[in-house]
Each structure stands twice: as C-alpha cells, then as structure tokens.
C-alpha cells in the first residue's frame, strides 16, 4: 500500500515537471523567412479611435474585422508627434534625439542617413521594395526615399480610394518577396479632403467647399465655446476615419488568400492628432493624443488574437520584422525585437521616451513625465488619467524626479552616441 502511494507521488511529481516545462517553452512560431511585408501606416490615426484598442468609439469596423486575429499591441508609444521625426525613428529603429545639436542642425533626416532604413536593409536582402507616399514630408524630405526600387509620391492628401487603387495595382505587378510601405495622409487636418459623393455630417460651423471632384472640409470656430469646437473637431475626424475604414475594408476584401498566407501585414500610425485635446489643435507634441498609436501585426502563422497589454515602443517594430524574416543586421540599431514580449517574456526596454525638439517625454509603466521647453514639467498616471487631464507633479515629485533624472542621463548618452557615430561617419563617408 505504502509502495503504491510512493509510486503515485513520484508519478505526480514527474507529471508536474513535464507540465511546467511544456508550459514554459512557448509554442508561438513567428518565423516567416520567405514572407512579404506590407506596412500600412495611416498617418494621424489615434489609438483611441480604433475599436481593437479602445471601446470609446465605433468608427473602424473594417479595420477591426481584418486584424481581429492579429497581434494587437494595446499600449504603443510613438517616438514623436511630428511626421519627420517619428517616421525616421520608426523606419530606422533609432531613437529621436532629445537635444538638437548645433553642428548637425537637426533635421533628423539629415543625420539619419547614417542609419539604414528597413527599405535599405530589405533591399540588400533581395526584397523588391515599393513606397507609396503622399507629399515629400515623410519621403524625400526626410531622406526616406532611400532603399526603394520604386518610390511613388502621390499628391498630399490624395483621396484614399485613389491611393489604395495604386497600392492594389503595384501589389499584383512586382516580384516576391516584396516590402511595401503605404502611407496615406488623408487624416491630416486643417482642411480635410473628402469624396463628393459620400454621406456627410452637417453643422452650422462646418464648411464644405467643392474642389473638382472632391470636397474640402474646414470649420469656422467663431461663436463656439472651446468644448463645442473640440467636439466638432472630433466629429469631423471620426467622419474622415469612417471613410478611411470603409475604403480599407474594400481593399482588404480584394487581397487573395495566397497573398495573405505569405505576407506580414503591419497596421500602425506614426503619430496621432490633437483634435483640441490638451489645448492642442493638431500634432507635434508628446501628449497621448499624439503618441498613443495603434500597432497590429497580421502574421500568416497567427490564427488567434494575441493581445499585448505592456506599454511598448514603436521603434521596436522594425527589429521585430527583421527577426520574423530571419534577417541579421550589422549596423547600430537602438530598437529591440518585440518577439520575446509577444511570447510572454520580459520586455527588455525599461523606459519609453521621445520628443519633438521643443518637448520630451519619458514613460515607465503607468507614469509619464513631460518637459515642455524646460519651463513646464508635467507628470501623469496613465492608468488613472489616460487623457492626461490632471498634472500630478506636485503630488508625486519623487516619481517625476526619478523619471527626469533618467531623461537627463539619456540626453547625455545620446550626445555621446551621436559623437561616436559622427566620427565614424566622417571617416567613412565621401560626399
């Protein structure tokens, strides 16, 4: 009897060890060596407007449906709220400089030629690379046209049905494996470009002006209270996004099974938009309205939704794709692969940080410290206050100080790094 008990105990222990060890080896396989990569970068798309990352609104049913069984990153921070900086940092997987140095007068694009972009790296690895862009801002002006076999620059704020038709056309034409970066700017405010034949909201302060076959939408904020024009800005943005979502839905429907089975599709925004939240009309600041962006990765081997709740940094996207494709890189890179995080392991990055030249932010967990011009420091608890309405710096000075100290240290580290890179660059680069 006693022997049997002992045997049962040994069996139980062996079974437990087996169960524990099988649980700890994660079965998620994300390698995708012969896959295509499609980047859909919807400029100015706020994460709190997308159904998969926020329950606040219901304006993106088609995007939500298409990426339903993708890897959903719920809490993604862009490195900057301005196009040139954020795009450059994301595509080169390098941090944005917190201090603008005087000798390489900042345009990040000027210095970023030292760092290869994903297009250059994939081109080297025999991908066919295509960029469909709008206006020069995130392309030639940022020197991000480099590395593309085909660089197609459409007019600024081209209607999305037109730019998607172009994307559809090139998808069918080029050889594989291919990397396509598609970047519509149709959500860019000031004035919106909208199709003439689509249903639209009315409001006494909304101005619709016919421009050929399109409508130009603007609003007059006279006689409106701040809350009223903030509400109007949100309504017009939602209308614009519904149109984007509808057209993306049509595009997704046309994608063949064959293409979907061998393509990693990444949906993200390089920054969001203010819409008068935190008194910010548009963007280029570090508030959440500007830097909290969606990031979904639809992977041929992922058939169930995978949600990542940890705060992650958008400059880590490109190294993640490199790892999925099995590509080794030999140049300096500051982004780190998100694959361990996707597999449920630790995220090696302790802090997220960035800025637009006139402001800086640093984030650790739920805490975010912001420094505007050096004269206005702010601290927010993003769990309790996701829209950064209450600055709690006076209530939690010690937390602010710890974060500020790390930010200051980071400024120095970046200057040291840039200095090293410059001497390397000056030695090796011939104009």
């Amino acid at each position, binding site marked *: 009897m006693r022997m049997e008990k002992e045997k049962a105990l040994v069996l139980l222990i062996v079974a437990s060890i087996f169960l524990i060890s099988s649980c700890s080896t994660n079965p998620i396989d994300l390698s995708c060596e012969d896959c295509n990569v499609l980047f859909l970068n919807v400029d100015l798309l706020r994460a709190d407007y997308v159904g998969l990352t926020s329950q606040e609104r219901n304006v993106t049913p088609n995007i939500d449906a298409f990426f339903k069984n993708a890897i959903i990153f719920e809490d993604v921070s862009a490195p900057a709220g*301005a196009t040139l900086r954020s795009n450059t940092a994301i595509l080169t997987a390098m941090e944005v400089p917190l201090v*603008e140095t005087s000798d390489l007068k900042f345009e990040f694009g000027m210095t970023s030629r030292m760092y290869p972009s994903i297009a250059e790296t994939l081109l080297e690895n025999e991908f066919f690379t295509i960029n469909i862009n709008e206006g020069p801002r995130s392309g030639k002006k940022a020197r991000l046209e480099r590395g593309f076999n085909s660089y197609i620059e459409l007019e600024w704020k081209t209607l999305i049905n037109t730019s998607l038709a172009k994307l559809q056309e090139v998808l069918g034409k080029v050889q594989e494996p291919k990397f396509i970066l598609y970047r519509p700017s149709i959500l860019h405010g*000031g004035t919106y470009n909208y199709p003439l034949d689509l249903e639209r909201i009315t409001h006494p302060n909304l101005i619709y002006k016919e421009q050929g076959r399109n409508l130009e939408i603007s609003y007059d904020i006279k006689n409106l209270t701040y809350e009223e024009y903030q509400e109007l800005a949100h309504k017009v943005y939602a209308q614009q996004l519904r149109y984007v979502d509808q057209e993306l839905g049509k595009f997704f429907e046309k994608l063949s099974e064959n293409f979907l089975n061998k393509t990693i599709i990444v949906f993200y925004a390089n920054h969001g938009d203010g819409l008068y939240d935190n008194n*910010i009309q548009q963007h*280029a600041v570090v508030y959440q309205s500007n830097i909290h962006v969606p990031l979904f990765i639809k992977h041929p081997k992922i058939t169930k939704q995978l949600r990542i709740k940890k705060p992650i940094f958008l400059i880590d996207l490109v190294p993640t794709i490199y790892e999925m494709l099995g590509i080794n890189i030999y140049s300096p890179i500051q982004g780190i692969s998100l694959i361990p995080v996707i597999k449920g392991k630790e995220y090696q990055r302790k802090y997220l940080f960035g800025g637009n030249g*006139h402001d800086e932010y640093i984030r650790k967990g739920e805490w975010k410290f912001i420094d505007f011009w*050096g004269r206005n420091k702010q601290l927010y608890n993003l769990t309790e206050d996701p829209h950064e309405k209450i600055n709690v710096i006076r209530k939690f000075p010690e937390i602010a100080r710890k974060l500020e100290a790390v930010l200051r240290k980071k400024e120095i580290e970046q200057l040291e790094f840039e200095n090293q890179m410059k001497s390397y660059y000056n030695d090796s680069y011939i104009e």
Partner: protein
Amino acid sequence: MYKKGVYLIKKIALILPIFLVLSCTIGLKGNSSSKNLWGYDFNESKSEMSTIFLDYNKNGEKIELVIMKNIEERFAKEIIDNKILLFKTAFQSERPSYLGKFVWHVKCPEELLPKYSEFEFEEGHLKSFFSFADKNYVAGTCSEEKTKYNSIYGFLYCSKKESMVEIHYFSELDMKEETNNFLGEINCEIY
C-alpha cells in the same frame, strides 16, 4: 510548547510593525537631507542616476535646482544652448514651416518679454532668463493678469567640477531685491 508558540507569534506581531515603520523612516531619510548652498538651506534628494535635486520653499521664495555631475563641457554646452534656444524660440513670432506643427509661440508685450543674460565665472558660466511666472510656476507668462511670481530660469555650468545646474527660481512679485540677491549668490561652490 503550544503556549510558547503563541507567545512567540504575539511578540513578532508586536515587533514587526514597529520594525517596518522604523526601517521605512530610516530609508526615506537616507534618500533626502539638508544642504546649504548659496546661502539657502535646501532639501536634497538624490536619484539613482547621480542627479541631485535641491528644493527650497520659504519666505516667498521657491527654488528648484537639478544638478548633474560628470558631464563633459562640450555635451553640457550642447544641452544648455539647446534649452536656451528653445526658451527663446517660444517668444519669437515666426510661424513653423510645417503646417501640422502646433503654433507654440506666445505673443508677449515688451514689458513681460523674458530678459536674457549671460555671466562668466572663473570656473564656469551662467545663462539665464528673468521673466514672470503664473500661479503654476510656469516661467514666461505673457499675460498681465496671470503674472504671479518673478522667475529665473537658467543653466550654470562649472567646468572644474564638470557639473551642470538647471535653475528654477520664483519669488513674490514685490521681492525684486531678493531675486537679484539670489542671482548674485550663484557660483560654482557646489559639491
């Protein structure tokens, strides 16, 4: 035996909270102390990144200093020049070239415009702005009715000690003399 066990548990239950409170107090005290600098008794707190924060808030004056040690002069220069330029830019009326960029400049009447000054020491230099601050201690307010404090925002670099000090000073509006005195006291006799 049982009684002994109960007695021991009771003792531990009594001693443990006292021990915890004491160790927390000691721990907190270990992180902040008092430091006299430039004639002011600052409250000092150190961070893990060898950055020191000094606070003073008495008699109508509020001072916050952020001291960073072991910074090479060329890097300190980059940082200081950048921050000074940023502060200046906020009050220039040029529009940004990029349409999406929020317009940050503030229209400021001449009498409220921040006044910039530079001062060279034997061992370092000070670059600072005198301006007015609002009730939230935001320097550079440009509206008469929001003006609540005198303000000095600036940077001191001490080359011998390779230390950079970020300075935020505020005083009541009628304390011009004290404000000037503070400026006069700034020197490189730090740590």
